[in-house]
C-alpha cells in the first residue's frame, strides 16, 4: 500500500493542443501515476494516446492491447515501436458530444536502472452501444530514470479543450 500519493503537476487544456508534456519530473518518488480524461479530434468514435519518455522516439517500446466494444473482443501487439500506447481509451469526434474517455497509467519504479513496464487501462464514455475500452501493457526498453513524459494522440490529431492530465508521484516510504 502506497504511503503517499502526491499530485506533482496537472494541466487542463484551455485550447486544443497536439501534445502535453511533463518535463523535469522530480526524482523523489517510487512510482508515477498519470490520470487522464481526454477527447481527440480524430473522425472515429475512439482514439488512443501515445507516450514518449525522455524524448526517446526510437523503436524502443513494445505493447500489447486487449480491447472490446461490448460485442466483440480483439487484441493487437507490437515489439518495436516509437512510443508506448494506450489504445482505445479516449473518445473522438464521432462519440457522443462532450464525452471524454478516462484512463490511468501506472509506471512502477521510474527511477530504477531497469527497463520500464507500464500499464494503461481506460474507456471511452460515448453514450452509444459501440463504446470501446482498452487494457494496454507496455515496456520501454531503456534503463534510464524517467525525467519527462510526452503525451499525444495516436492518430496525431489534436487533444481537445477540456482534456485534463494529472501526474502523481507515489512513495513507498
Amino acid at each position: 500500500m502506497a504511503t503517499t500519493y502526491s499530485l506533482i503537476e496537472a494541466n487542463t487544456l484551455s485550447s486544443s493542443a497536439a501534445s502535453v508534456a511533463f518535463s523535469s519530473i522530480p526524482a523523489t518518488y517510487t512510482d508515477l501515476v498519470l490520470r487522464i480524461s481526454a477527447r481527440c479530434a480524430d473522425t472515429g468514435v475512439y482514439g488512443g494516446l501515445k507516450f514518449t519518455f525522455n524524448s526517446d522516439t526510437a523503436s524502443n517500446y513494445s505493447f500489447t492491447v486487449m480491447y472490446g466494444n461490448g460485442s466483440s473482443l480483439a487484441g493487437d501487439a507490437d515489439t518495436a515501436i516509437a512510443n508506448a500506447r494506450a489504445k482505445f481509451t479516449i473518445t473522438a469526434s464521432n462519440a457522443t458530444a462532450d464525452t471524454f474517455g478516462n484512463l490511468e497509467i501506472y509506471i512502477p519504479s521510474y527511477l530504477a536502472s531497469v527497463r520500464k513496464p507500464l500499464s494503461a487501462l481506460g474507456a471511452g464514455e460515448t453514450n452509444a452501444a459501440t463504446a470501446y475500452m482498452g487494457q494496454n501493457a507496455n515496456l520501454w526498453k531503456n534503463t534510464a530514470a524517467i525525467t519527462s513524459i510526452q503525451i499525444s494522440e495516436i492518430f496525431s490529431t489534436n487533444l481537445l479543450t477540456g482534456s485534463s492530465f494529472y501526474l502523481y508521484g507515489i512513495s513507498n516510504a
Partner: protein
Amino acid sequence: MADTPTKVVVNCTTGVTEVLPLTATEIADMETARVAAEAERVEREAEQAANAILKAEILERLGITEAEAKLLLS
C-alpha cells in the same frame, strides 16, 4: 492558412506551463506518425471485415445462428 499546432509543456520542478508552437520538424514527424497509424487502422478494419465474412460463412455451413454458436462455446 491553418493555425500552427501547439504543444503544452508543464515543468514539474518550476510549475511553469508553456504553450509552444510545434517546429517544422515536429509537424513533419506528426504527419509521418499519422500516416502510419491510419495505415494500421485500415489494415485492422480490413482484417475484422474479412473475419466477419468468414464467421458468417462458417455459421451458414453449420446451419446454426451466432447466438447458438455462443451457447455451444459457453
